[in-house]
């Protein structure tokens, strides 16, 4: 494990967030982010870890181009990239079937494509014609992830995508996300699960409590395929020794 300071090739996307302040109903301001610089290379897997409510989701939304009311800039404009997003809640259209929900986000030219393989890979074949209201939260999360990945995007933005999945399903889906990253998709993922971050990420970005900023970036040089349980445990213990907040994770 070593501190990250890799300039590398030109990044796929780079955000400089000097400040992000939310306006409360009573008119006062609540500063969520103060000074984050984050760059993702093509095919890089970055995990954001930080305490609850520290501004991780805000950072994701800014990077995905969903929040433009902040001080700073994102280069290039997120609108010029293909971005697949899996939100913290699945956000499926309740009046469209599972398959329709996935198909709808595809570009017009790919709308008619056969989705059977993708749907099967996410274990959704038996549910393709069902409406989201009939699914458990875990299944709905799978659909949300399948929708984001169906796009084959330049950048996958994932906000705690494996929460409330059973262990086997979560492991399967982690493998698919890792495969996407190996195939050249950049991934930015928020998670509370330190083991998960250590299993998947090329780089872990530790965030401070609100107003959040980057505390440290940790590069994980060992290839994903070679990371086993003992290695993950050793890395987690080393991280927890430096960041007491992670001891529970």
């Amino acid at each position, binding site marked *: 494990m070593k501190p990250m300071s890799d300039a590398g090739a030109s990044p796929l996307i780079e955000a400089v967030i000097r400040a992000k302040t939310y306006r409360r109903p009573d008119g006062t301001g609540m500063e969520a982010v103060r000074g984050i610089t984050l760059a993702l290379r093509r095919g890089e897997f970055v995990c954001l870890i930080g305490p609850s409510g520290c501004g991780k989701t805000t950072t994701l939304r800014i990077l995905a181009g*969903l929040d433009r009311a902040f001080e700073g800039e994102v280069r290039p404009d997120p609108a010029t990239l293909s971005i697949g*997003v899996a939100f913290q*809640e699945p956000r499926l*259209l*309740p009046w*469209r079937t599972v398959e329709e929900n996935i198909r709808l986000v595809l570009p017009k030219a790919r709308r008619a494509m056969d989705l059977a393989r993708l749907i099967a890979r996410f274990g959704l074949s038996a549910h393709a014609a069902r409406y989201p209201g*009939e699914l458990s939260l875990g299944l709905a999360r799978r659909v949300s992830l399948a929708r984001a990945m169906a796009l084959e995007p330049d950048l996958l933005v994932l906000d705690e995508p494996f929460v409330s999945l059973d262990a086997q399903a979560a492991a399967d889906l982690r493998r698919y996300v890792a495969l996407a990253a190996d195939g050249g998709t950049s991934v930015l993922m928020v998670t509370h699960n330190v083991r998960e971050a250590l299993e998947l990420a090329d780089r872990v970005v530790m965030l401070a409590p609100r107003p959040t900023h980057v505390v440290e970036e940790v590069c994980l040089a060992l290839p994903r395929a070679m990371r086993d349980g003992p290695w993950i445990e050793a890395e987690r213990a080393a991280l927890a020794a430096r960041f007491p907040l992670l001891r529970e994770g």
Partner: protein
Amino acid sequence: MKLLSSGTAARAASLVLLLLAWEITATLAHSRSLPAPHAVFAFIAREATGGDLVSNIAITLGRVVVSFVVAMALGCAIGVALGRSRRLDTAFDTWVIVLLNTPALVITVLCYIWLGLTEAAAVLAVALNKIPTVAVLMREGTRALSPELDEMASAFRLSPMDRLRHVLIPQLQPHLAGAARSGLALVWKIVLVVELLGRPNGVGYAISVCFQLFDVTAVLGYSLAFMAVMLAIEYGVLQPYEAHVRRWRLSAH
């Protein structure tokens, strides 16, 4: 299926009971003011074959359809605009409340005075009576639109047409169906008043003539015949439409 058929049987039995009570009361009262149902149905059959019943119903139905479509279109547009823009809502909320509380009779009389006793005045009067109700229902529907789904649509860059078809309209459909059902019931009642006051044909006009002749059988006959047409639209068109737009909710249970 069993539940459906037992429900239908209960409704039919209730209707037969009502007709029976009416028949007995009319026989006991033995008065011109309360004709028996068999006399009313005989009038309907006679007028349907040799009288103006069918043409009058067709004319009234035409007015109902035109004013209903105008009221729904304008009411939806106004309601969605007010629901989306706080500024527009602040500016025009009072207008909606004033129109909502103006008696149907006043609007009708004013339309006839300002536009003359014309077809356009009649349709406008009915539409103006209905527009504020639709606008208020659609405004509430628009306010309840999910910002999360809106953000999802932005994240996946859905085209404006896809947003409209798959995100916005499905959210508004239950409100639209509610507005349509309550709207139809209101519109046909107001159309009869508007015809009574200023048109030379239609069910409302026919009822006013029957009233002047104190022909209660004809008044009830026209009312029942037109009511049957509106019930057919309610059960044959509006309720199936509402069931269709809510199918994804029902399947959750």
